Each structure stands twice: as structure tokens, then as C-alpha cells.
């Protein structure tokens, strides 16, 4: 038990109690994040129910390849993140494996943002930004793209926060300032990362798949 005392923080006397509290705390926060994105998805759902045709037309304009690649990237990053947190929890000195998985997760997160950047550039070129010279003729399509920019923007912000947290863990772990095995911060960061991935899992069919059949 001795080496975990370095991780013991202020009000706690027992380390596993502190870890339980950390996990419980992040799960309660994830419930609030679920409500946060859930409200956004509700807005999308109601607007889509009220403008079915326009949303189908607008959905067709999004680039499905960028969307699918990004989903694949995030699912893979979830794999590497899960590996990192489970390897840390196994507490068997798998230091190299943990560091490699953390680095891979951060890299995949960056890849997602890069692909997203290309997609945004293409959307701007095709005048898919709601406003005066909007590309499509259905007025309600502007509502779809209004939601598109907000939802993907807020998700990208959450992903960036996730990348920063993972990069911090990787650096601290690599420079040995920080004990990796059984460190609750890796599990907490992992849970947050998985939430960001789950949000994208729901955004993918809502943004990229409408209107593909007609």
C-alpha cells in the first residue's frame, strides 16, 4: 500500500475510498454532461420533426466520408483509452503500454480535429454556413446547419479538453513525475474520453445519415 500514499489527497484517510469518490464524482459529472448534450440532441430532434423535408435535403449535403472516418477514429481512440485505463488499473507495471496507449489516444483525438478542420473548410467553401448567401434553397436547411455548427463545435471543444487531459497524463507519466499504476486520474480521464466518444456516436447518424435514401 505504501506507494499509493503519494497519491493520497487532503480530506481522505484511505486511498481506495478516495478512488471510489473520484470515480463516483466523474460519473455524476458525466450524467450532467449527458443532460447537456441530450438537450442539444432534443433540439435537433424537435427541429427535424417539424422540418422533415428540409432536414433530409440538408443532411444529403454533409460529407459522409469525413463523418465515417471521424467516427472510426474516435472509436479507435476509445479502444486505446480503455487499454490505458485498464492497464493502469491492473497495476502490473505495464508502464510502456500505458504511455503508448495514452499517446495513441491523444494522436487519434488530434487526427479527428484535423479531419474536422478539412470538413469545416469544405463546408465553408460550399456556402453551408447559415446566413445571407446560404447554399441551399430550403430556408429550414439553415436550421439544420445552424445546429450542425453548434453541435460539432461544442463537441470539438469537449474533445480538445479531453486531448489536453490525455497529453498532460502522458507527459507527467513519461517524465516519471507521476505514478501511473492505479492512478485514479487515468481512469477519470478515460471515462470522460469515452463520454465524448459516445456523444459522437449519437451525432453521427443524426448529422450524416438523414436523407441518404432519396
Amino acid at each position, binding site marked *: 500500500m505504501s506507494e499509493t500514499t503519494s497519491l493520497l489527497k487532503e480530506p481522505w484517510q484511505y486511498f481506495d475510498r478516495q478512488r471510489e469518490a473520484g470515480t463516483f464524482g466523474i460519473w455524476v459529472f458525466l450524467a450532467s454532461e449527458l443532460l447537456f448534450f441530450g438537450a442539444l440532441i432534443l433540439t435537433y430532434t424537435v427541429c427535424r420533426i417539424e422540418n*422533415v*423535408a*428540409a432536414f433530409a435535403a440538408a443532411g444529403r449535403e454533409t460529407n459522409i466520408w469525413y463523418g465515417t472516418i471521424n467516427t472510426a477514429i474516435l472509436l479507435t481512440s476509445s479502444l486505446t483509452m480503455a487499454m490505458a485505463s485498464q492497464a493502469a488499473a491492473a497495476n502490473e507495471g505495464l508502464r510502456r503500454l500505458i504511455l503508448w496507449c495514452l499517446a495513441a489516444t491523444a494522436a487519434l483525438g488530434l487526427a479527428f480535429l484535423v479531419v474536422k478542420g478539412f470538413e469545416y473548410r469544405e463546408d465553408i467553401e460550399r456556402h453551408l454556413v447559415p446566413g445571407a448567401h446560404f447554399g441551399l434553397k430550403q*430556408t429550414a436547411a439553415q436550421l439544420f446547419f445552424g445546429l450542425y455548427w453548434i453541435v460539432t463545435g461544442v463537441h470539438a471543444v469537449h474533445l480538445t479538453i479531453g486531448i489536453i487531459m490525455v497529453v498532460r497524463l502522458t507527459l507527467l507519466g513519461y517524465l516519471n513525475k507521476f505514478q501511473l499504476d492505479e492512478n485514479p486520474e487515468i481512469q477519470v480521464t478515460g471515462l470522460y474520453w469515452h463520454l465524448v466518444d459516445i456523444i459522437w456516436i449519437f451525432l453521427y447518424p443524426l448529422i450524416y445519415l438523414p436523407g441518404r435514401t432519396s
Partner: protein
Amino acid sequence: MNPIFSLPEATTHAEHVDHIFYGLLVLSGLTMLVVFALIITLAIRYRRGSGAKRGPLPEIVSREFEIGWTMATLFLFAFLFWWAASADLSSLEVPANALEIHVVAKQWMWKTQHPNGAREINALHIPVDKPVRLVMTSQDVIHSFFVPAFRVKQDVVPGREAEIWFQATKTGVFPLLCAEYCGIDHSMMRGRIIVMRQEDYADWLTQQPEGDDLAHVGAKLFVERGCSGCHADASKVHAPKLAGLYGRSVQLSDGRQVKADDRYIRDSILQPKRDITAGYEPVMPSYAGLLDDGEIQSLTAYIRSQTEKAND
């Protein structure tokens, strides 16, 4: 203006509302009396050091007490819900012979229009003892059509039509207020509802400047905006003809059946691709932004007049 202390009940609906209001008032008054009396007597009787008896408590198990008043409160509130809901449901159905008046709310004024085209600003003359149906829409923000004496209030949301009805039972002048905050002069957006006897209302209508009624305005718009190009009976373009359309149920291309009422016509003008009539191509351009709500109401009145002409 209504007297300070009591609000007149000027519609059939107002009586129901007042019955429920006074019922709730009596009930709340009783409950408050009981709670205040209990607190005061217990506070005085059992004040610190008073001589009141304080031995072991009687064996009333607090659980039975609790369940008792919980259930009592639950059933009382369920009854109140049923009483209020039944009054609400009974007043939902709009009587068929209602006089239809179009109201357009605009930042800081009310514009009303009678079926024969008479227009008023911040005023509305209506006959007594006759159901009146208001079809309201807003041109900018959310307003709220509120007539305290009628116990009637309905938010007027831009982009959709709000509908209420009432039947005045008293003649007189009643204040009309805007109840939903709508900007700087929200408190100036007031008007008057003038309830007149049937004959006075008829005289008043005839004296109004012969603003051509909705249907005439609609006919002019029908030609000016190019609707007649496709939808006129004589046009060769393959487009649904409007004679006898109003009130009929329309077969749509995706198999649905929809009744051709005001809302159907309004949506077909603004979003033609939403409900495409069976057997026709979705080629009609959308008029959203080109026609304001007043003009759409006139076109609807014209289309309806076509049907009435076709029937009789």
C-alpha cells in the same frame, strides 16, 4: 373601465373560471386557517415552561397519521385536477357558427380584421351572445392576447397561428392587454374590446369604410403573385385546381390523407414540399418571406370563397 374591486364576468367561460377560482379560494382559506390556528394554539399552549400536560405521547402511530393525510391530500388534489380539467376540456371545441376574426400582433399594437374586411387598430367590435373565433398570428415577437374580463389569454407566437374562441354575455367596453413581455412599449400595447348588441354590431359593420373584404384582396393577390399562372381553372399547367378544394380531404403523394383547412393552405404556400398532392410534381416554389401573414389570410379567404361559390 372595470371597477377596482371586482372583475366583470363577460363571457360564458368566465363563470366557469370564477367558480373554480372561488372554490380554490375557499379551500385554500380553510387550509390556511387550519394551519395558522394549529401553529398559534400549539405555540401558545406548549410554550417553554407552560403548564400544559406533557407525559408520554398517545399511542397514535405517526405512520398512520402520515399515510392518512397524504392520501387525503392526494385524493383532494386529484379531484381538483378533474374539476379544472373538465372545465378546460369543455371549452376546447370551437362552435361551428363562430364569427371568425383575424388578429395580427405587431410590436406594440393589435390589428384586427373582420370577415367583411373592416380593419381596426387596438380595438375590436364584436356582437354579444355570439361565439367569436380569433385566428391570431404575430409578425415579430411573442405577444399575448389578454382580456381580463373574458378570462381569456393566449400567446401569439410568430410563425404559427394561435386560435381561441369566446362568447360575450355582457355588452360594454373591456380592456385588452398584452401579457407576454415584448419590448420597450410592452405596457403601451393595450386596446379595447367593444361588445355591442347584434343590431348595433350589424349597423357598425355597414358604416365601416368599404375596405374590400378579404376574398377580394385575396383575388388580386392570387393574380399579382402568379398563383393564377398554375392554379387558375383555365391554366394549362399541370397543377392542383383550387375550385371546391376548401374543406375537402386531399390524397397526398406519400399516402397520407389531410383535410384542406387554413393550416394546410398556409403550409402549402410556405413549404410546398411538405405535403405534395398525389399525382403532381413538387415543383411549386416556396413563398416564405415573400407573403406576410396578412396576405396569406387574404389568399386563404379567396380560396374558401371559391369553394363556397362552387357549392351554391
